[in-house]
């Protein structure tokens, strides 16, 4: 399986069904295991996060982000791995992000963690799952008719912007600063007992 073919909505023609099935299941299972073990899937942790009382989920997210970024750019530097740059649509991210946040605060689950919640028996997540599919149906019906021009027209940078490119520095500078900021934040959170 070629590792330089990265999917962003396009299927890799070289990968068979069984391979895709096993690969997806494996990575999902490890992710689900870590999410559950870390209690990230729990409603109380998600709402506690949004209430700024219990920052467990934030610690998890930022740790993953720092380690992940370092790993990605090691892949880039050592294995010459590349990936498509993500386009920026400021209006879509701001509007969509806030709308997501509203739903997140109401529901107490996000798309990934709700599946983990189901796995540990918290079956109210199935309602969120049903709602999530319904929300997608609504979005699909609205987006190209009503939304797309404004939401994806304002503040659009379709070529993608990376932080290190914008700042004009080596990516390791960004990663080092990001890591340092996160570590300082973690230290502060532990001191505050959050």
């Amino acid at each position, binding site marked *: 399986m070629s590792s330089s073919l990265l999917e962003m909505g396009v299927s890799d023609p070289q990968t068979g069904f069984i391979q895709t099935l096993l690969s997806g299941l494996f990575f999902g299972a490890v992710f689900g295991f870590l999410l559950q073990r870390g209690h990230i899937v729990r409603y109380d942790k998600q709402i506690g996060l949004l209430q700024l009382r219990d920052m467990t989920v934030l610690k998890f997210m930022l740790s993953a982000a720092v380690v992940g970024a370092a790993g990605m750019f090691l892949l880039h530097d050592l294995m010459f791995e590349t990936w498509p740059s993500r386009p920026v649509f400021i209006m879509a*991210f701001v509007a969509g*992000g806030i709308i997501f946040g509203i739903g997140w605060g109401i529901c107490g689950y996000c798309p990934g963690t709700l599946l983990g919640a189901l796995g540990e028996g918290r079956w109210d997540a199935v309602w969120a799952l049903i709602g999530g599919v319904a929300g997608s149906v609504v979005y699909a019906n609205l987006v190209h008719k009503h939304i797309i021009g404004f939401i994806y027209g304002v503040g659009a940078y379709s070529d993608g912007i990376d932080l290190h490119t914008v700042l004009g520095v080596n990516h390791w500078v960004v990663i080092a600063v990001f890591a340092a900021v996160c570590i300082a934040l973690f230290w502060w959170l532990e001191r505050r007992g959050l």
Partner: protein
Amino acid sequence: MDRLRNGGLNPYIAGGLTGVLGVLSVWIAGKFIGASTSFARGAHGILNLFSAEHASGLQYFEKYFFKAGDWQLFFLIGIIAGALVSALLSRSFRWQAVPDMWRARFGASIGKRAVVAILGGAIAVFGARMAGGCPSGHGLSGIMQLSVSGFIALIMFFVGGIIVAHLIYAGGERKLTPPAGSETPGGEQ
């Protein structure tokens, strides 16, 4: 520095391992971790069952069409399985219809929780598709790439969530306390 609440895995370690996992999934499988795209594909699949003509007329599904061999779909099924195994091994599996914090604030009614969760889920995924992903797929994976998009999206997810959570839980218990009466929201300050 370890804050192990109720025997859970240290979030720094769990998060760090997740970061490694994310890199491995790119390297080995050629896929970034994510979740919400499958909701869009699932929506296509379901809409197709009801009205194939309508579904095929929607431009959105030209990119986000249902496919049976979707890696992310298996990834999501894997999450359920992995969480189940972890819960059983750590004896934290609990068949529960209403989360503790919810019950303390809004009561034990399953129906009430269902309606709100459906509504919340719909709004959340609607927003996620507009934003081009959810915290895992756009936030985490985007930041791993050092994409400006990932940072913007994640910040906006939190802005919306923090405001709403404060509005919903305002005036209620700030800590999890046992419910005094099932329907009475806490008013203590």
